[in-house]
């Protein structure tokens, strides 16, 4: 018996792969002492503050915690309504109140050698120089509140290199190298950290055509292995293990992609389920805990149901201006205290997939089209990324 255990362990241990950069990583992490990081952050903040004045003149402010992150914001806030009703996805910048379409992604199907296919994304990022959207080659991206910086992921489908991109100059200001591949990036609400979900392989499922109208979709276990919290000012990336949720228990998740998100105040994280409750809460170091008291979210989103002034809460449907007439398909975010960014339906709301972005007043009286309508049920659909402008 002893021999069987020994032989088994010997043989099994022989299958491990030995990384070659263990010493470098250990020495690098040790080197990020708080004092050194603070000195570096201060130095970078000064550099960027000078740069900010150069770019925008005296009418600028620099956000408190910045360093490399440095969202440089105009003191005059942007709340105007910007629409591109002829196009879906939009070609010109779309925004209303405090919410902007900062980026969007479209999908395409990549053929695989075994006859299957899997979904891939193409990312488009708001470009303030052209006031439109620029097609990019990043594997994933997210725009920081204020629209001054983006976090971009270098790689084919997943990757280990995260860049902090200046939206105005389109230059990557800092690169952060990680030990594990990550598949999504999300800025913290205060714009100082990036949450990156780590996967051992590309998390999207593959599918094979079963008939003219159907596919067999493979749902292997999710390859999520953990997440990074990246402090943008110091470049420090703290890794936390977090196995995927199981799809066979409730609440659980049978999807391969299980990207994490932030609580509204950035003090906690959540992982998505594929049912209700739609999220499970974690402390920043990955311990399961109760959600933030009083926080109310629009289902499956990172946006609050509570209006900015705290006086109204969105219900599932907006009241129709005329009885029996549906106003919108889905509410997405508060644009200001009286208007909501929503998914509006084309014509008489006959198809839930035929839709576009609209701005609608809370009484359902006034609807402003923001993008063209388009049937978003097909493979060539587009998906917006909403970001706070101010």
């Amino acid at each position, binding site marked *: 018996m002893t021999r*069987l255990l*020994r032989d*088994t362990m010997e043989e099994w241990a022989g299958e*491990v792969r*030995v990384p070659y950069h*263990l*010493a470098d990583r250990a020495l690098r992490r*040790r080197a990020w002492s708080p004092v050194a990081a603070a000195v570096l952050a201060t130095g970078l903040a000064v550099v960027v503050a000078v740069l900010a004045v150069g770019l925008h003149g005296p009418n600028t402010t620099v956000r408190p915690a910045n360093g490399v992150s440095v969202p440089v914001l105009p003191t005059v806030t942007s709340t105007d309504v910007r629409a591109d009703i002829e196009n879906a996805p939009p070609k010109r910048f779309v925004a209303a109140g405090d919410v902007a379409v900062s980026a969007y992604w479209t999908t395409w199907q990549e053929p695989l050698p075994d006859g299957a296919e899997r979904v891939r994304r193409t990312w488009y990022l708001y470009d303030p120089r052209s006031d439109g959207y620029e097609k990019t080659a990043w594997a994933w991206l997210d725009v920081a509140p204020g629209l001054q910086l983006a976090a971009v992921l270098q790689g084919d489908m997943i990757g280990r290199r995260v860049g902090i991109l200046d939206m105005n100059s389109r230059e990557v200001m800092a690169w952060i190298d990680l030990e594990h591949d990550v598949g999504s990036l999300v800025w913290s609400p205060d714009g100082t950290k990036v949450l990156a979900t780590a996967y051992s392989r590309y998390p999207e499922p593959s599918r094979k055509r079963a008939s003219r109208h159907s596919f067999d979709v493979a749902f292997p276990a999710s390859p999520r292995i953990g997440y990074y919290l990246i402090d943008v000012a110091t470049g420090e990336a703290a890794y936390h293990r977090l*196995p995927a949720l199981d799809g066979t228990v409730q609440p659980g998740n049978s999807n391969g992609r299980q990207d994490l998100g932030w609580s509204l105040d950035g003090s906690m994280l959540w992982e998505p389920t594929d049912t209700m409750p739609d999220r499970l809460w974690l402390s920043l170091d990955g311990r399961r805990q109760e959600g933030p008291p009083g926080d109310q979210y629009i289902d499956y989103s990172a946006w609050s149901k509570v209006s900015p002034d705290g006086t109204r809460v969105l219900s599932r449907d907006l009241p129709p201006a005329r009885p029996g007439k549906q106003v919108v398909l889905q509410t997405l975010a508060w644009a200001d205290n009286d208007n909501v960014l929503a998914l509006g339906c084309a014509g008489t709301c006959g198809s839930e997939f035929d839709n576009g972005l609209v701005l609608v007043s809370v009484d359902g009286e006034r609807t402003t089209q923001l993008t063209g309508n388009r049937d978003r049920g097909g493979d060539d659909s587009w998906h917006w990324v909403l970001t706070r402008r101010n």
Partner: protein
Amino acid sequence: MDAADEQRFREFVSARSPALMRLGFLLTGGDQHGAEDLVQAALTKLAARWQQVGAPEAYVRQIMFRQQVSWWRAIGRRGEVVQAVPPDRAGADRTHQSELRMVLRGALARLTPRQRAVLVLRYFEDLPEDRVADALGCSVGTVRSTTHRSLARLRQVAPELAAELEAAP
């Protein structure tokens, strides 16, 4: 840490990382990413205390043992490696040693990290009970009872190994 210390640290990691990774791989139940994290975290701590630590390998191993158990406590049972399928059940005609070893791997992966750590220390590292107790920061009695429970769990998870495991000391 000066340049000479850094050079010695690099030499230590270069020489010992294969053994440390093998140990980490077993402690995490065959999880490559988990093993890298475990070894990396222990080496980072060693680097921070390099000048004070007299026996670096023993220090790193002790951190790995205790870290693995505490990570498991922190994230609960989700820390176990989930097998896509239950461990292969060998039939009466599948008594070949290599097949038994595959079955035993699957069963080891289904132990708790603490149970697995005790078996790794006893049978892979070949340590006596008192040194296992030192490494895990528990009593010799706890080592004995955990060993007993770990073997019982292996028999329960993989009944076809019961006959082999009956001969346990």
